[in-house]
């Protein structure tokens, strides 16, 4: 099979499989991610979404933005649903009733992945289905109006953990789902960001070629929930990487590798200060929270550096 080089000039000639005209908010990170993922794939893809922003905005009544087969069944079960389709594919292929090479990809938000869909995801990964589960993580239940999820970062103001005079936003640290998925000992787990499109698309390509269950967690800025400028999605996802809030790494067959190391690790406030959801943290009485966020990031980054193989080690 001839593979399209991951160069903008060549990629621009490929058909975009999520059409314009969908109803996602302008400046949303999610459709950018979907387009990048589908552009990276050289195979026919069957996709599945859990209930959420992307789902309700991409297929309404008689209209669909998907140029590939796509299914949505409910909020909490995208992994089980696509696992069913993948199993039917194997059944029909075994019997010679289908001959194409088809890939299976989910696009789900953090609520449908970290919280209500977690059991379904964990089960599908354990059973070893040949599928790529992609979580577009915008850090809250944005579709229902910015309620906290277990992906919501510490300190964030949401509609169910509003920053008030007594409670200064979310008091719990976010769940580290990428690590949890790596602990499933599946062949491939990665974190990616649309700001680093080449890194993202390389990871998708790698994941698709690996047989078995794969998981990718992709940061997806949401200007409505993050209270940021509509044109800052890429800037914010880049700052998330450069501050090490969202490190870009992969765990391939148990080996952790950092794929993008920031040239200069920026202070996390560079990422936080552009977002209204963290505005209250900049009040003098909440300075301790900003300090805690930076400490947590530093600690997690150090742990990741320790876990990761360096390029030198890899050469050996």
């Amino acid at each position, binding site marked *: 099979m001839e593979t399209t080089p991951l160069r903008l000039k060549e990629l621009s000639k490929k058909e975009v499989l999520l059409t314009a005209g969908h109803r996602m908010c302008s400046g949303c990170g999610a459709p950018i991610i979907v387009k990048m993922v589908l552009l990276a794939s050289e195979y026919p893809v069957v996709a599945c979404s859990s209930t959420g922003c992307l789902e309700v905005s991409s297929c309404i*009544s008689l209209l669909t933005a*998907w140029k590939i*087969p796509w299914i949505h*069944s409910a909020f909490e*079960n995208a992994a*089980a649903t696509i696992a069913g389709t993948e199993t*039917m594919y194997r059944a029909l292929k*075994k019997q010679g009733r289908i001959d194409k090479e088809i890939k299976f990809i989910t696009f789900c938000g953090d609520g449908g992945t970290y919280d209500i869909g977690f*059991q*379904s995801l964990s089960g599908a990964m354990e059973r070893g289905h040949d599928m790529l589960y992609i979580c577009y993580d915008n850090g809250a239940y944005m579709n229902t109006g910015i309620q906290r999820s277990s992906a919501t970062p510490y300190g964030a103001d949401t509609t169910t953990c509003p920053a008030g005079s007594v409670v200064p936003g979310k008091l719990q640290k976010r769940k580290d789902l990428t690590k949890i998925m790596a602990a499933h000992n599946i062949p491939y787990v990665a974190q990616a960001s649309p700001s680093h499109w080449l890194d993202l698309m390389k990871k998708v390509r790698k994941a698709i070629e690996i047989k078995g269950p794969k998981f990718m967690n992709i940061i997806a800025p949401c200007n409505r929930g993050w209270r940021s400028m509509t044109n800052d999605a890429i800037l914010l996802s880049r700052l998330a990487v450069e501050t090490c809030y969202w490190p870009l790494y992969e765990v391939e067959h148990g080996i952790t590798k950092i794929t993008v190391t920031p040239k200069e690790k920026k202070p996390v406030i560079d990422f936080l200060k552009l977002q209204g959801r963290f505005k209250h943290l900049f009040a003098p009485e909440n300075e301790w929270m900003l300090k805690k966020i930076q400490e947590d990031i530093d600690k997690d980054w150090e742990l990741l550096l320790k876990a990761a193989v360096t390029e030198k080690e890899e050469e050996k």
Partner: protein
Amino acid sequence: MGKIVAATGNEAVAEALRQINPDVCAAYPITPQTDMMQRFASFVSDGKVDTEIMLVESEHSAMSACIGASAGGGRVATATSGPGLALMWEMLYVASGMRLPIVMPVVNRSLSAPLNIHGDHSDAMGARDSGWIQLWSENAQEAYDNTIQAFRIGEHMDIRLPVMVCLDGFIISHSIERMEYLDDNVVKAFVREYKSLNPLLDVENPKSIGPLILPDLYHEYKRAQHEVMTKVKDVVLDVAEDFKKISGRSYGLFETYRLDDAEIAVVILNSAAGTAKDIVDEFREKGIKAGLLKPRLFRPFPYEEVAHALKNLKAVCIMDRADSFGGYGPLFMEVSSALYPLNDRPIMINKIYGLGGRDFMPQHAEIVLDELVEIVKTGKFKTIKEYIGVRE
């Protein structure tokens, strides 16, 4: 020719599933269904079926996987019981709303609390509004026969709906009875090759399945589901006629037993109908015109046909192995709705029996028929709804 065997209900349904050889089967163990799926898993391990089995982490995922698999474009089966069916609840509506012909034996079990693993009809009755076709089975033979017919009914191109095949937990699922298996090739020819409709795996013709539909079209979508249900009765009867040709066994929308000239009757589902038929015989021997009606197709409910069958009775007891607390039993609600349009209708009473596996004994049927005799004599009844077989 078929084969006479001694088999449990679970064994018989597992055998039907082996003969049907679905493409995908997703299941999760739950008492009393467990041993059905264990048997089917052995067929997979021993290469007796081509089925890809998915041993998922919950019934919710079992039904979700069945939805994904069926939408993919092949034949799909699962099975469950009681709380497992309850956990599937949201997805039951998705399966029927997407018009996916999944077949699911339901080994009827009570619902918690208190926890109870034994048979009653609370599970399937709770799912009666979910848009699934429901076939009910008195014994292992009927469960086996209904399972085979269910695929033809659900997969019919005019129908395309999921089907539940109900059989009583333990009483039928775990009791051995004499029954007949059809030959493998006869079953295979009867169920036919699976025909897919808008399969998701047809990547050349991409489809989006499961859209958001707001008030502009949702109402029409649901009316379409209602309309397809009105076609089910005819298909059930056509399939039954074909089934009679291969098995010699007759099936209808319901079974009537000594009902033609009856003055009193019970309406009762599944295994307890067998016990009640014996007592109907005893009353007949005493010269009392007793009869019985055992529904088979509960969804869609054959209102006109049931009304026609019961219209000449003087009194009828509708017996429910499930309760709608604060309401009448679910079977009573249907039968009384069926009879209401008649100008002249029997007196109707409702008995709740056998919850959580409480035995339905011959004397319970006797008490009920005695009460109906008394009602006919006096023209009066003491109460519409009452529990029987209760330890006071």
